């Protein structure tokens, strides 16, 4: 009965296709990519994705894919929780909901009742909405910075569907549009055939090995992420490093000093676009929803303070993170290119 020792079906053993989505090229590419998957037609993606009685962490063991046609809104204004990196017109889009990875500090498990991944097949509609926003942006003399990897890790998905490269190609043709592609992936190879674009910021989240191992499940190890960063810089891409979230636990200081030393010895700071630093933070509602599910992770049993509806570590610890990062990044990159969330 069981094909391997793992009793769980492989990810995407089932693909749920919303009525009308099958007519899009991206849907066909996806179905071709997984020819053995069971295809189930659904009337509306929400009838599958928003069901009651789902368990996010159990579903993570065998994620399914949902192909759907996104309805408006197609573009969202950045929130206080995301770092805008100094860009005044900061927006994000959601080409995919949910992520291949399973970082235990991630807000997605509080945001969605399902761990299944929704791929919106009408990326063109999102691009039309971006064009409209470009025309009507609040600060017309500043470019529009668009995060395309906010509710997912798009680059990690690149070997499955080429959505990142499609957005990069689009950004190259749209005046005043800049992209941020935040990732933990080591799949930079999937973009190497593209001409580096000054309008695209590739942002890698780096964490000590202990955090990768204990908190960032299914993600590539630190050294592979650093290799990807090195390749991207070498090819001429704009690169941001994100130490976000810096996890605070007994002995965190040494682990992060070692991480920063490793980064400083392998990456040329003057070639980086900037660095962002943040700590664990999650909207209170999302935090409570995750906590109620009794997660295995210890992250949800620590003491946090409620800072204007956002659960985060106490002020004194936030300052400790800032001090340590600032001190250890001194001389590596100029201070004005380090952005702290606080």
């Amino acid at each position, binding site marked *: *009965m*069981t*094909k*391997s020792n793992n*009793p*769980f*079906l492989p990810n995407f*053993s*089932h693909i*749920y296709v919303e009525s009308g989505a099958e007519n899009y090229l991206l849907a066909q590419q996806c179905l071709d990519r997984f020819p053995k998957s*069971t295809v*189930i*037609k*659904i*009337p509306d993606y929400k*009838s*599958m994705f928003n*069901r*009651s*009685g*789902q*368990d996010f*962490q*159990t*579903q993570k*063991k*065998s994620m*399914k894919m949902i192909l759907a046609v996104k309805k408006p809104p197609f573009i969202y204004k950045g929130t206080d929780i995301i770092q805008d990196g100094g860009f005044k017109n900061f927006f994000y889009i959601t080409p995919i909901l949910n992520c291949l990875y399973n970082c235990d500090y991630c807000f997605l498990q509080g945001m969605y009742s399902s761990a299944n991944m929704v791929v919106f097949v009408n990326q063109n509609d999102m691009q039309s909405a971006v064009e409209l926003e470009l025309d009507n942006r609040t600060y017309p003399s500043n470019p529009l910075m668009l995060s395309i990897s906010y509710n997912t890790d798009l680059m990690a998905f690149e070997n499955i569907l080429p959505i990142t490269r499609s957005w990069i190609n689009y950004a190259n043709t749209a005046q005043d549009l800049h992209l941020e592609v935040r990732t933990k992936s080591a799949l930079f190879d999937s973009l190497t055939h593209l001409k580096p674009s000054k309008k695209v910021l590739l942002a890698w989240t780096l964490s000590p090995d202990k955090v990768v191992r204990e908190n960032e499940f299914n993600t590539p190890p630190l050294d592979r992420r650093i290799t990807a960063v090195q390749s991207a810089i070498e090819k001429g891409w704009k690169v941001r490093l994100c130490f976000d979230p810096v996890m605070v636990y007994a002995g965190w200081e040494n682990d992060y000093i070692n991480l920063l030393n490793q980064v400083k010895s392998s990456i040329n700071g003057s070639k980086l676009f900037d660095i962002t630093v943040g700590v664990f933070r999650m909207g209170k509602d999302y935090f409570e929803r995750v906590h109620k*599910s*009794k*997660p*295995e992770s*210890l992250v949800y*049993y620590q003491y946090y303070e409620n800072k204007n509806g956002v659960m985060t570590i106490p002020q004194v610890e936030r300052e400790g993170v800032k001090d340590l990062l600032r001190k250890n990044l001194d001389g590596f990159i100029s201070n004005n290119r380090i952005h702290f969330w606080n």
Partner: protein
Amino acid sequence: MDLDWENTILINLGIAGGNANRTAIGSLYRVNKIIDEKTGRSYFPDILIHNGLNEIQLTTVKNGVSKNGNRYSGLVDMEASAIFETMSKYVPTHRLLFLKVVSDYMDVTDWKFLDVESLILKKLDVIQLIVKSHINIDLSDRYILTPGEIKFLNQGSIKLQFTETQSLQLISRAEKFKKLGKEINKLECFFTMTPRSKQERNRIFDQIKQSLST
């Protein structure tokens, strides 16, 4: 309903009419989509575990179908949507299994000639394997406190005449305390007390909170 839903796998095992072109009488199917014909609603049990069965969609109808059965693309029964709708309030969608043996092609004129028992008996071995594959700790609800620890805390709450909110807070704080590697039996000394007023009860509750936060 007062049952141990945390460890329950709910299986709806039964017979169903099948589309003559797509199903075979006597075959066992796992249902991956249920459509309620009356409301038009669709229901989806999560299918996370290898099972080796053919999957199919099923339509739940209000009245039995005895002709033109091929207008339904998969199976037809008279209960699955109601079972899903009711039971998904108690059991998560990954522990709801709908297993159906095709008994007819919706052309039955006299139901008493259907040998349901025999149809099911022939598939019992497979059904047992499927049940076995779902007895898996990874499919159970997660819990932090053992039933014994919850009983200990509830008895303490009764003894100290805690309000319902205080009792719930006690459980929540005890979970956090245990998760951080500490023993909740340190609360035993509080549970021997008997408050003589609400003020005293609240004072003890504050002391317990203090004790669980250190």
